[in-house]
């Protein structure tokens, strides 16, 4: 009784409607809220169409024509794709793209996770250390690439000079195909490990320290704890980080272009660099765009595989 009295005593605006009334209210103005939401989203959709959908559609058009950036050319069907797939340079670039991505993803992940685990322990000056470790990721890639070029680019650069003085001969990393490939992969790891460190640090915060104590009491070693507890717990954010890093690495143009321009003799051409050169150096827009589309297809396939892993890890 008192409850109903109190309800009637409340001002109209403060009264809680009965469940039926709430249901009625929700359905009384069908479409208004969705329409408002759609209206609010509309500007973003328009911008997205203008900045992404239109260029993608036009690029698809170009991939099916033999024109240039300026002239549309004739319709050639899938000839550009066939031409690209028959080109050994494409497969060489695809191969190195895979190596570059694997090195970039797993290299940066291993180092990032190791440092993230280290930063969970009690170490002095942790804050300063974290800031310093973020620098490779924070510094613009142009500056980083210039620095690396200065360090290793020519025979008179500091690192080759030092190695020469120590009796290692002429170590010109970027002049040798294998040396250049290793260098760009190392650079990619160096630039990206802070991102992985942040992702893994965030993932590790969800791990309750007490489970390790329990595992220790049960006789688990440190490596067993890491393998059977830490890794499964951080599996989902790890897969997400891998997906993101795969996209970063496959689409990474500046690293390769600034360090080696894809050389020597095309040894460090990735697909994105090859697409750029095909369009802007050989002026073959159709094949260049075809390379970009094929690259995207492969990237989407990798994303699907990793996404399945995310689902598996979540369900288990």
């Amino acid at each position, binding site marked *: 009784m008192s409850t109903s009295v109190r309800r009637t005593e409340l001002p109209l605006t403060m009264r809680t409607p009965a469940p039926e009334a709430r249901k009625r209210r929700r359905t009384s103005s069908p479409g208004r809220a969705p329409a408002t939401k759609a209206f609010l989203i509309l500007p973003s959709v328009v911008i997205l169409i203008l900045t992404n959908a239109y260029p993608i559609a036009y690029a698809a058009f170009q991939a099916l024509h033999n024109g240039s950036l300026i002239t549309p050319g004739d319709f050639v069907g899938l000839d550009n794709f066939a031409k690209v797939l028959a080109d050994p340079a494409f497969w060489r670039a695809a191969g190195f793209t895979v190596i570059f991505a694997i090195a970039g993803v797993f290299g940066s992940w291993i180092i990032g996770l190791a440092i993230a685990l280290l930063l969970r322990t009690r170490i002095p000056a942790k804050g300063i250390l974290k800031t310093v470790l973020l620098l490779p990721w924070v510094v613009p890639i142009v500056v980083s690439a210039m620095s690396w070029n200065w360090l290793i680019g020519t025979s008179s650069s500091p690192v080759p000079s030092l190695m020469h003085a120590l009796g290692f001969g002429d170590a*010109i990393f970027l002049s040798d195909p294998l040396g250049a490939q290793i260098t760009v992969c190392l650079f990619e790891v160096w630039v990206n490990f802070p991102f992985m460190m942040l992702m893994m640090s965030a993932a590790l915060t969800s791990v309750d320290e007490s489970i390790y104590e329990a595992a220790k009491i049960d006789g688990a070693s440190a490596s067993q704890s890491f393998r059977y507890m830490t890794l499964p717990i951080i599996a989902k954010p790890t897969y997400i980080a891998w997906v993101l890093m795969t996209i970063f690495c496959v689409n990474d143009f500046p690293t390769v272009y600034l360090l080696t321009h894809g050389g020597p003799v095309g040894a460090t051409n990735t697909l994105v660099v090859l697409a750029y050169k095909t369009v802007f150096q050989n002026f073959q827009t159709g094949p260049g765009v075809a390379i970009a589309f094929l690259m995207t297809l492969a990237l989407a396939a990798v994303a699907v595989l990793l996404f399945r892993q995310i689902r598996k890890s*979540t369900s288990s």
Partner: protein
Amino acid sequence: MKNVLPPTAMSRRGFLALTGAAALATSVSACAAGNVGNTSAGGGILKFWDMPWGNQDYLGAAQALTQAYKPGSGLPGASYQQVNWDGFNQTFSSAIASNTGPAVSTGGGFQAFQFAKQGAIAYADNLIDSFKKDGTYDDFLPHTLDAMKTSDGYVGVPWNLDVQVFWYRKSILDQIGATPPETWDDVLAVAKKASAKGYVGFGISGGSGNYGPMAVLSLMINNGGGLFNSNGDLDIVNDRNAEAVDFVTELVKQGVVDPGSVSMKDDDLTTAWTNKKVALGFQSPAFNNVVGDEKDVLVTNPLKSRRGDIGGLYYVNNIMMYKNTPSQAGSEAFASYYIKNMKTLWQKGVMQGLPALKSITELPEFKANAQNTAVVEKWQPICKTTAAQSGTLSAKLATIDGGQAMTDFCQTVLSAKSPSKTILTKLESDIKAAIS
């Protein structure tokens, strides 16, 4: 297994769409563009785009020259914009495709042919006719105007020539007791002596930039070879070219080339010259001015190959006009003004190339750098274009010059690991694929 993703998680389809869109947008959106139209190039102001053609003072001098332009009644004024060589093809192509390009520009040696083929160039025939009337036509150095002529008209107007000449640092040669080389064998002998003293005997840069490929091509033309035969067909795998490649390979194997030359950038090579570490090498005219050592960095006579031939490579750099202009009469008036007043660039000593006008080569300021005269008198007359041994320039040269095929070729030569005929066969195949 049942999907246990929380309701707020992204669906697989959504995730794929997002991933695909992000990747595709990054990959291909830069490649897409619109078509050339006839809209104004920039609100009545005529846009002039220029490249860095000289030393650090060039930009100011070229800007001043543009700003001094006083358009005739009803004609637009001109604005100045400098474009870096790095990625210049992308800059021009993207801008022209999006109707934001220049009305008049300088640019790569074959850029005008490339854009003429794509329908973006306004032919310069009216301008050339006006030069015939006022006498400017006769002031151009021999063959330079002919190089711009196509079956549809003149694609541009020559304004400077980039001649690949052979330079030596006198102080190093004095130190090792050598005289300037006259033949390829001299080059090898001098370079070996210089290397023995810790210098780079033969400076060449195979990394980013175009000086490395230009140097190798210079030697091929020097030996009577080149990329084309006299009919204009590709003719790369021949004995003359093979001998030139073998000569460079020999230089590498003798240790007179920097071990990092495969990946060395043009700027790094210039720095090495400036730091007095290089004895010999191909460079553009007025290179002694660029390295700030006019008295010590000097031009040799044209080299004799082992067959006894002489020859070299040069580029006829030109000023071109585009259809996308606020006024074609305005473009022609500005281009005419620039050609007739560009002597100030050489008077101020900021240019690296040779002028295309004879009258400028006779200026005392130009002759003050004795090496300029040597280039005009000894090198320019024996040089040929990238089209050698054909005399006709075309759009396909824009793909070849500075393209991936030539860069890979130069880097393979400098690696000195493959037989010359194998390298040349690969070059021919790569060029065929690029221009097909």
